[in-house]
């Protein structure tokens, strides 16, 4: 039996929203479900157009059906997000190491006596970190809706790595700006604030990950009243 185009289009629409590796299997299984339901309706004497509508109604909107598969991907997503945050942290660490080598600051002596230039540089970077933190929290709130955590949002896979990389690049640029404005030696000398940057970046990434991966474990059920 040739699948009616609306049913095939629905299966394709769902499949387009799931990981490419699973796309064909999910589309085939979903199409089999739709066609089976469609045939049942036809057997009951329902007109083809109504049977198509009834079959589609049982699966809900394509985006909602796809989100079920996306929720099942959350464990794999957690690893991908951790890898993304890890590479960002490595990038920041490389920037820090390069700065220390190139600027060759004098050895730190306790107690630390921050120079005004170093304090200014610290302020620039910390301000950038604060703005990035606020942006991360705002983004997570915008993408989270009741009953649907950020992980279930179709755009989560795309947005999160971008956010991680943007965080790393922004902090690196802030470091560069601070160096240009206050002097590289002053920046590199400010060991205290450099020690703050990486924990901040790690905290931002950890908070993002925690928010992305915290949601109810249960699958939705829709019992009907008998």
């Amino acid at each position: 039996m040739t699948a009616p185009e609306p049913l095939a289009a629905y299966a394709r629409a769902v499949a387009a929203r799931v990981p490419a590796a699973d796309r064909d299997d999910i589309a085939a299984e979903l199409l089999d479900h739709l066609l089976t339901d469609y045939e049942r309706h036809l057997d009951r004497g329902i007109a083809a157009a109504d049977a198509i509508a009834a079959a589609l109604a049982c699966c809900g909107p394509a985006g909602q059906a796809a989100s079920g598969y996306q929720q099942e991907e959350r464990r794999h997503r957690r690893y991908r997000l951790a890898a993304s945050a890890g590479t960002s942290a490595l990038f920041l660490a490389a920037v820090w190491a390069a700065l220390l080598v190139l600027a060759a600051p004098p050895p730190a002596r306790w107690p630390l006596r921050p120079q005004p230039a170093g304090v200014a540089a610290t302020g620039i970077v910390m301000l950038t970190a604060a703005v990035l933190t606020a942006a991360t929290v705002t983004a997570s709130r915008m993408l989270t809706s009741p009953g649907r955590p950020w992980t279930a949002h179709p755009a989560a896979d795309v947005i999160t790595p971008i956010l991680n990389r943007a965080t790393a690049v922004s902090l690196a640029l802030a470091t560069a700006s601070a160096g240009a404005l206050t002097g590289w030696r002053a920046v590199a000398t400010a060991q205290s604030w450099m020690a703050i940057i990486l924990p901040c970046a790690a905290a931002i990434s950890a908070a993002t990950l925690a928010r992305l991966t915290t949601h109810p474990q249960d699958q939705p059920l829709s019992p009907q009243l008998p």
Partner: protein
Amino acid sequence: MEADLLRGNLDGLILAVLDDGPRHGYSLIEAIHDRSGGAVTVPAGSVYPAMRRLERAGLVTSEWSDHGGRRRRTYAITPAGREHLAGQRRSWQEVTRVLAAFSLPAPQAQS
């Protein structure tokens, strides 16, 4: 039936139905509906992702076949799935026993 009462039990319902024999997704949804006396209709959007989760966990296996010119995936429970189901059933029996104690008004206290 209250949806909250069944929340979190979808995996167990699926395994319980597959314990009677292999089924494809549509048949499985029908079986859950019939076995619950029509009280539970599980949406397809929940069942198929759950089947994938169960397969990844090694609790079910699947195989593809040709059905009237289209591909059909049939699921079967594994020994690990039966073991998991046994634990789930013990849990259900315990919950049922406890809730049964509250399903009727308490006897009047003797004065």
